[in-house]
């Protein structure tokens, strides 16, 4: 026998399950603390996905118990349940799932996660996964004990039965596995669920920890996120091999119809344009295209402008709920949000939405926290390798009133950043879904969104500093000046000094003061006006008098109102400018308070403002 033939005997197919058994780090089971987090994450992702598809507000219960050397993880939801015959394959067959072949945003994509958790549990504790599911109030709950036959990648059922369950519908999974339970801040089951709660404010999540401590992440809104619809692939970014496959296996008979039906964002007019440009008849059978012609077709995709993919394949959180989510889990003084329009990378639509929280009880010194999310799933490992982090580090935070270490980086100070990337296909750097790959389109869009919230923060902070200056001045004029004046009059034994002009000067106000001089048979009146502000002030000054004035120094209009005369002057004063108005009235004339029209009441001292 030839050596090659000898060697050929040893060649055999490897099942996916066997492959992952040997390479568990790829799926996020590389350390004991992480194993527990990953199992919880896979089960919770599935629960939330199922509830959303069924339009149910999720109520997820997570419990972790210590059993001898092992931990038992229980995750229970109020979702639609899973029909009995599907349960074994959903939980105990790798690469079995409902979402891989559709273009729609969902947490799970490949159908690996939960079966990998089952496999990990089975490998470390030797115990099967116990699954209970109920699909309606009148149906019995179905129980399974399952393991994965790794050689065949097929489920094996150890036990099958029915039972009563108080829930109307839902799914429950119990896994027993080896691991370590940690309760550190970020990379822990608690930290993970807290972040889940930020981006899923419509969900109620309960966590019972091994020591019996109960953490409740309460629902902050009754509005479920918009349901994401499946769409066709977008022509931008489609690759040649993919196009050839689509052409060959389509059931369409004509190229024009094929283009319209297979791709999103292509209508009749675009179809005509493409065919003309590629020099291909719209009537041709798609299967008849040669390799050369397919290539020509693909190049026209890039030449013409195709509109963005429809948004309804994505389910963004929305600015309102981002704000709610951040405010629910952090104590903040200010929240800014931004959502970018839908963009495309390699034919996949995606959008970026961000939130920025400032102040409150956030750490005033350290580096800003950055919460990363992909399709509503928190990313808690490998922050430094992620496109989101890289984009945040590229932003010139100094321009937005934030401290930033030299040579760029995350801002420092009381800032929390939240970035959510929604896509029909998130480009992770590895199957453990820890970090998003550095695609230029994603980095650019994330930067733009962060700059937008940065601008909003800068506006907020500059408004705050104007306010605090105003508050400081108010403290001076309301608290300190009157006390100084009181003390001075006590020391000197005199009447309290008149502080109004000083107040006007400090506040930068318009100062108005009327002086009377009793003469023989008439009163000579002077009104002093001074503009202590830094802008030109134009206004009308009214005097309401019981007698008509005479010897008026400045042209005035006066009109009788009832028994009185309303005299008014139009005046404009530059910064620092003053003016005096004088007039005489017969003795016994009644005055009312001088009135200023056309200015804010807080910038006027010494007159009534209307």
């Amino acid at each position, binding site marked *: 026998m030839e050596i090659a033939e000898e060697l050929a005997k040893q060649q055999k197919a490897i099942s996916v399950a066997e492959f992952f058994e040997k390479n568990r780090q790829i799926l996020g089971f590389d350390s004991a603390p992480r194993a527990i987090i990953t199992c919880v994450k896979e089960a919770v992702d599935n629960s939330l996905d199922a509830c959303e598809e069924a339009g149910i507000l999720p109520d997820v219960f997570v419990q972790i118990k210590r059993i001898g050397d092992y931990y038992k993880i229980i995750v229970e939801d109020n979702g639609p349940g899973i029909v009995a015959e599907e349960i074994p394959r959903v939980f105990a067959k790798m690469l079995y799932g409902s979402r891989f072949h559709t273009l729609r945003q969902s947490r799970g994509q490949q159908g690996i996660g939960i079966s990998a958790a089952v496999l990990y549990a089975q490998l470390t504790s030797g115990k099967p996964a116990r699954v209970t599911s109920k699909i309606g109030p009148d149906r019995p709950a179905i129980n399974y004990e399952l393991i994965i036959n790794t050689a065949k990648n097929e489920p094996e059922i150890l036990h099958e039965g029915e039972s009563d369950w108080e829930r109307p519908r839902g799914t429950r999974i119990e896994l027993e596995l080896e691991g370590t339970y940690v309760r550190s801040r970020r990379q822990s089951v608690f930290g993970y669920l807290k972040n889940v709660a930020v981006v899923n404010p419509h969900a109620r999540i309960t966590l019972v920890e091994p020591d019996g401590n109960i953490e409740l992440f309460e629902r902050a809104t009754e509005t479920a996120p918009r349901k994401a619809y499946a769409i066709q692939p977008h022509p931008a970014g489609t690759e040649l091999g993919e196009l050839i496959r689509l052409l060959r296996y389509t059931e369409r008979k004509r190229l024009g119809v094929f283009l319209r039906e297979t791709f999103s964002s292509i209508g009749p007019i675009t179809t005509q344009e493409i065919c003309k440009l590629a020099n291909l008849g719209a009537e041709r059978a798609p299967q008849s295209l040669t390799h050369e012609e397919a290539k020509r077709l693909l190049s026209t995709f890039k030449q013409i402008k195709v509109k963005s993919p429809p948004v309804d394949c994505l389910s963004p959180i929305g600015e309102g709920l981002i704000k709610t989510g951040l405010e629910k889990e952090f104590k903040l003084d200010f929240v800014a949000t931004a959502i970018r329009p839908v963009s495309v990378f390699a034919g996949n639509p995606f959008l970026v939405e961000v939130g920025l929280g400032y102040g409150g009880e956030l750490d005033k010194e350290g580096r800003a926290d950055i919460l990363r999310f992909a399709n509503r799933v928190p990313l808690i490992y490998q922050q430094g390798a992620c496109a989101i982090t890289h984009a945040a580090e590229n932003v010139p935070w100094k321009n937005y009133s934030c401290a930033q270490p030299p040579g760029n980086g995350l801002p420092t100070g009381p800032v929390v950043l939240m970035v959510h990337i929604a896509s029909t296909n998130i480009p992770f750097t590895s199957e453990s879904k820890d970090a998003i790959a550095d695609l230029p389109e994603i980095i650019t869009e994330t930067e733009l969104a962060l700059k937008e919230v940065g601008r909003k923060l800068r506006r907020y902070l500059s408004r705050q500093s104007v306010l605090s200056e105003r508050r*400081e001045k108010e*403290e*001076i004029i309301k*608290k*300190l*000046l009157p*006390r*100084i*004046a009181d*003390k*001075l*009059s*006590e*020391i*000197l034994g*005199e009447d309290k*000094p*008149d*502080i109004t*002009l*000083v107040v006007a*000067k*400090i506040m930068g106000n318009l100062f108005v003061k009327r002086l009377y001089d009793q003469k023989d048979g008439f009163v000579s009146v002077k009104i002093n006006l001074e503009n202590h502000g830094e802008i030109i002030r134009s206004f009308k000054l009214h005097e309401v008098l019981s007698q008509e004035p005479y010897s008026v120094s400045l042209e005035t209009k006066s009109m009788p109102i009832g028994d009185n005369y309303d005299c008014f002057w139009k005046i404009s004063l530059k910064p620092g400018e003053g003016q005096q108005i004088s007039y005489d009235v017969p003795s016994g004339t009644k005055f009312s308070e001088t009135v200023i029209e056309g200015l804010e009441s807080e910038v006027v001292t010494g007159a009534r403002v209307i």
Partner: protein
Amino acid sequence: MAKIDVAQEKLMGLARLLYDQFQNGIVPFIALPSRTKNNIEYSVEDDVWIYGGQETLRSVKTIRGAKTILKTVHMAELLIKEHLQNNRGSTLREVYYISENWDVAKFNEQAESDRLIEDLEIVTGLQREDFHIRPEEDGAAIFGPLRIKEQTRRGEREIHCQEDVGEAGYQIPFNVDNIQFLDHDAKIIMAIETGGMYARLIENGFDDDFGALLVHIKGQPARSTRRMIKKLNEKLNLPVVVFTDGDPWSYRIFASIAYGAIKSAHLSDQLVTPSARFLGVQPSDIVDYELSTDRLTDQDIHALRSELTDPRFKTPYWEKQINLQLELKRKAEQQAFAGKGLDYVTKTYLPERLSEMDL
């Protein structure tokens, strides 16, 4: 006019000034000379360093300024109504505690109330004693061939500063005006920084052997100590030398005796002894006498550099000594002489230095 009336009138004058500013629509302010080393200048008339023409304004335009003026007004009221009108007094620390009842005008620390009292001295041209404010410490001590008469609250006392005192010497009271010098047998006045060296010189009989009046200044000397040195210098017509550690902080002690302190330059003409001379420890002594030394700390180096830009130290002598020390990167204490034997300082170092200085 009685002293007490002058003080009251000056304080009322300050209140009147602020009151009139309000009435005339002037945003109230108090102008003070700025108390930094950049604003002290040499006065040919008195041979001391005093404040220059730079002014800082305390204005009610800012919260800080408004609070300071409110505190000033509170303080003026306390001094007029409690101290002067009732002929009572308080210590600097008591004043700080009294402000507890002043609500927003309360002082945050004693240094703040001390500073404000200095401000009032400057504004009124008076001294804190005129407001009946006492310092805590009763100055330092003197040991040497001198007989004095002190007017105390319990009558007159005649004291000889060797025969009638214990080993610690005669305690300088805070009011030096109450002391009269009767007779003496001294040739020199020596101000000494540390208690250790003061005790060493007494133990070695240096006061008798050299006719020295030893003044223990206890670190940075209090005003009464500086006033006492000045009074001894002027009334007895004796030269003054200052003997301190060899580090930048000690040079500042010497400067406050001989040139005037930045903090109290408004009183320089009453506190400063312009003829006082620096005896040591000089940086050049570290080399000449091979003293045991410590490394200069970062703060020491910073303080030395700052002295190089201090107008009071702008003399060839100090520039040479300070630059030498920066080069050596070492400092020495007075007690370092003990390394050469307990008598070394009185038998060798001091006689040599004094003859170098022609004393």
